[in-house]
């Protein structure tokens, strides 16, 4: 095949057009059944519902904050469903769709944003590390974990692959770039999955990078690929291929999922201060869920009853999210002192004891009429 400009500047890898037409890509064949596509549609609808419920719960004062995934469902479900159970994912803090794929209950995510936990789920049980808020830090954890996988000899067809999620903003961080380098020189079984949602709070992509993000990989010595992040099938195929390369000892890959943050950075943010509504309208036409629905309708792979059933399930999930969130009680005050150290610590023990006495000093004060 002759080298053309297209090879230097590849289009997005896309398997599903916004109109729902299935296309083929020579490097990423995807053998997928109608049932599997319907399952992906269900995932997409349900995580969008969990997300919108969480935004509402924040508005009602039930959550302190929420970072919405709106618009990034396909990137997360596509990549998340490419993972095997023994694989390990290292999320940033917006990966609610990946968490869904790993079997984490929405309440586990809500707990952190409600302020009742700092994470709290068992990363080993789910194959999903805790959300990491300091941007880019988790890329190194993923790389180190992958170096551990190598030392365990867990490389091969049945091997373990590791994936690190981060955003376009994180590509400016030293830790992310150090992770690329450590992964490269160690040929570590790790996939770097960058959701380029075009915005790092108020800063557009051109404030982070002068070259396309996927092209950074070449400088570190491993392949980089740009995929349509609003195409769940392309994200699935590309991530699956990269994970398989990693698990069979062929080293890291950088995937740039080209997508869009349709909502605010978090519930504290107001994007009308820095971006045009027209941009949002443009991306709405590429909605990641609508194109799967278009596909299912176009190819007559689902009927009205199916869509109605999914909507009904979404209503139930929404209700579950609301109930679970409101039922999460505040932790006990003395929990502050738990799990700071594995081993007994005289300072912590002393402070716990003094604070317990202090709290106890208020007991009965009400009955005595206070002081």
């Amino acid at each position, binding site marked *: 095949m002759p080298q053309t400009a297209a090879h230097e500047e590849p289009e997005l890898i896309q398997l599903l057009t916004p109109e729902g037409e299935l296309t083929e890509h020579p490097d990423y064949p995807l053998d997928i059944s109608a049932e599997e596509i319907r399952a992906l549609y269900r995932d997409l609808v349900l995580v969008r519902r969990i997300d919108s419920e969480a935004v509402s719960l924040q508005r009602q004062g039930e959550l302190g904050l929420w970072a919405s995934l709106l618009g990034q469902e396909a990137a997360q479900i596509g990549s998340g469903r490419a993972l095997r159970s023994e694989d390990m994912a290292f999320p940033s803090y917006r990966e609610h769709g990946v968490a869904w794929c790993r079997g984490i209950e929405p309440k586990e995510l809500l707990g952190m944003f409600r302020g009742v936990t700092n994470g709290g789920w068992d990363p080993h049980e789910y194959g999903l590390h805790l959300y990491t808020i300091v941007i880019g830090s988790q890329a190194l954890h993923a790389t180190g974990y992958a170096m551990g996988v190598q*030392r365990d000899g867990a490389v091969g067809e049945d091997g373990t692959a590791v994936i690190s999620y981060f955003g376009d903003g994180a590509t400016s961080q030293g830790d992310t770039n150090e992770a690329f380098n450590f992964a490269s020189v160690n040929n570590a079984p790790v996939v770097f999955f960058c959701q380029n949602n075009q915005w790092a709070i108020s800063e557009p992509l051109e404030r982070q990078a002068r070259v396309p993000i996927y092209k950074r990989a070449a400088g570190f010595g491993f392949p980089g690929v740009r995929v349509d992040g609003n195409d769940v099938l392309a994200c699935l195929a590309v991530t699956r291929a990269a994970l398989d390369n990693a698990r069979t000892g062929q080293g890291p890959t950088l995937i740039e999922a080209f997508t869009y943050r349709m909502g605010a950075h978090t519930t504290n943010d107001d994007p009308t201060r820095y971006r045009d509504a027209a941009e949002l309208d443009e991306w709405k036409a590429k909605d990641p869920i609508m194109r799967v629905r278009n596909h299912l309708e176009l190819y007559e792979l689902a009927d009205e009853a199916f869509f109605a059933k999914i909507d009904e399930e979404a209503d139930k999930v929404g209700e579950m999210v609301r109930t679970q969130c409101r039922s999460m009680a505040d932790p006990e005050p003395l929990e502050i002192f738990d799990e700071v150290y594995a081993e007994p610590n*005289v300072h912590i023990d002393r402070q716990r004891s003094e604070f317990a006495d202090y709290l106890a000093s208020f007991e009965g004060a009400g009955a005595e009429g206070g002081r």
Partner: protein
Amino acid sequence: MGTNLTIGKAINAGLRASMEHDPKVLVMGEDVGRLGGVFRVTDGLHKDFGADRVIDTPLAESGIVGTAIGMAMRGYRPVVEIQFDGFFFPAANQTFTQLAKMRRRSAGKLAMPVVMRIPYGGGIGAVEHHSESPEAYFQHTAGLRVVSVANPEDAYWMIQQAVRSDDPVIFLEPKRRYYEKAEVDTGVSIDAVTPMGAARVARPGTDCTLLAYGPMVKTALQAAAADEEHSIEVIDVRSLAPVDYATITESVKRTGRLVVAHEATLTGGPGAEIAARVTEECFYHLESPVIRVAAFDTPYPQSRLEEHYLPDLDRVLDGVDRAFAY
């Protein structure tokens, strides 16, 4: 089974014993492999345990600590070498926001058995950033344990205790004392050795308690020997997080005076915290305020000035004199 070892060789022997005891123990850092580290503390480990367990890393401290965290999550026990104290700072984010908090963030589901070895302190005539004493930053950070060794015996045992700890341990090595030699009894069981969290009375005395750790312990012992007027009790603090206040306050209640000496800068240094706590616990026993002998609140100076900057025997004795002036 006595062996004559330097502090550097004792840490090396302790690392070797740790690696023989547990196949999950790894050593990683800049030049720790074939070179054996710039101070040769990891000498021979690469040859005997291989490149998978003694890892020459890229030159990036944040990357070293960040990947060590990932390795710990996978079940390994990495011993990280930060080549010099002043090069720790690029790894500050991974240490403070990730390593120190991971256990608590995971509600106890993730352990972080990572040891960070840092050659620290001045007195070797080095260029800038090679003579720092950053221990207060670590002591101030919840979730970290911080220890410093002052003799070959402690070097040999405490590195092994640090490796066996399920908490992250900052292991501070007094680089100007690396070549101090002593007999080390390597034949006893590690379970019979003093825990690394305990302070040690290095020289008994009755008139004044003198606290030091790491490189200043030798200076403190010399000062105590040089003072012919007073009987000075020297305590090697050994652990800065947590501090063994039981040993310290027992001593101060007997002597009535406390001088704390360290190479770290005065303001907000470990001496300030120890002074506050001892004042709370020994208020009615104190004959004088707690005196601090520390480096000045300036950046570490060029090496031709460091003899004036570092607290030496005379500055320590001056501190003792100030305690007796009350």
